[in-house]
């Protein structure tokens, strides 16, 4: 291992965030939107367009930060996120529809 690779891998490690859903917890990266990472973890999320215009994947964001690489066409309600296009930027807690 060279000395230059260490800081790089550390930097990438920092991009891993915890997503809390009820009592469950999964880890996500900033590489992809939240939806695909939730699906990969076996968590069912509603979707239709998967590109930000239908609002089907709207999930409650209880705390933490997400960002959108492009502004979604769907209306994003305050306190909610659109899983198909949201990039998780910190540890977050989310809740499904109640």
């Amino acid at each position, binding site marked *: 291992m060279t000395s230059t690779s260490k800081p790089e*891998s550390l930097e*990438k*490690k920092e991009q*891993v965030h915890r997503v809390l*859903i009820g*009592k*469950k*917890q*999964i*880890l996500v*990266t900033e590489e992809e939107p939240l939806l*695909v990472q939730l*699906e990969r*973890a*076996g*968590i*069912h999320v*509603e*979707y*239709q*367009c*998967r*590109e930000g*215009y*239908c*609002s*089907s994947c*709207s999930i409650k964001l209880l705390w933490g930060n997400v960002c959108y690489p492009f502004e979604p*066409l*769907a*209306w994003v*309600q305050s306190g909610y996120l659109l899983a198909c296009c949201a990039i998780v930027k910190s540890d977050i807690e989310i809740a*499904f*529809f*109640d």
Partner: protein
Amino acid sequence: MSYSTFNRKKFDSMKEPMFFGENVNVARYDQQKHPIFEKLIEKQLSFFWRPEEVDLSNDRKDFQKLEEHEKHIFLSNLKYQTLLDSVQGRSPNVALLPIVSLPELETWIETWSFSETIHSRSYTHIIRNIVNDPTLIFDDIVTNEEITKRADSVSKYYDNLIEMVNLYNTMGFGTFNIPGKGDIEITMPKLKKALYLTVASVNVLEAVRFYVSFACSFGFAERTLMEGNAKIIKLIARDEALHLTGTQHMMNLMASGKDDPEMAIIAEECKDDVRDIFIEAAEQEKEWATYLFKDGSMIGLNAQILGQYVEYITNVRMQAVGLDTYFETKHNPIPWINAWLVSDNVQVAPQEAEISSYLVGQTDNSLDDSDFDDFDL
């Protein structure tokens, strides 16, 4: 306040409200008060499709093999879809164009309505392909009581707004006696209320009623029947997702007061009415489900499951426009619908389709860092 097709006043359209301001004059899109409507236009244009692109020859064979009660389900659903798009292909234009005040919103309304006419043309394409005499199907839409009941509830808010705007454009404000209808009072708050309720009922039409009909169409395709039809419905569903986003934006912009402060007061006053519109529509849709399945169910879909989907989707749509949810059903009883609703231009890996079909409600809480070893972190 008569309508002009080219308003001769000089005014700043960036300062106009969405509705009931100046009539639009110059159709310009270099600047927008609400850029969302320009984006919706662009997206809708990029979706352009033609029904004839979809081959329905297998559907004809499939249809002939269906049991009688399945034919009833399929055709009734198709008639209902035809009714809804007949309304949507004209009403946004007739009701909203005379009162719209922003060029980008005016063009969004026209683009939106135009796409509905494609939906209508696709029903003709389907009907022509599966039956010998399309007239029998089309005629039944105006005579079948179960369908006409629906027609009343999807058109009444539009019709009321159109009537009030006609009076306003010819007579201005005041109370007018209309033979057979009695006194109708025209004030700006009353016009705005009629508008808000219309937009809400259109949102219900597109975001609830249509999705219930999609569920039926895809119910056949889940059994690998009527797949050409499902392909068309998939294209329609992609458009409808955009339309419902358009009406959600209108409602939320109105309610926020950012567009027109008076509209925020009206939206607040109308909260219970809007809630009732959602609930009433959901109850009607559940009744409709009972009618569809009166002679028998299909594998995977029956009146009870469709009724639960009605409740679920109504909850989702209510919440999207800032209302409290009303029904008990908080989970999608037919999660397989997502794989059908998803647009073709988006790649969904097969395993993701499986996740939505078979792992409903399951979550894996035993994950730790080692589960992510496959990823290049």
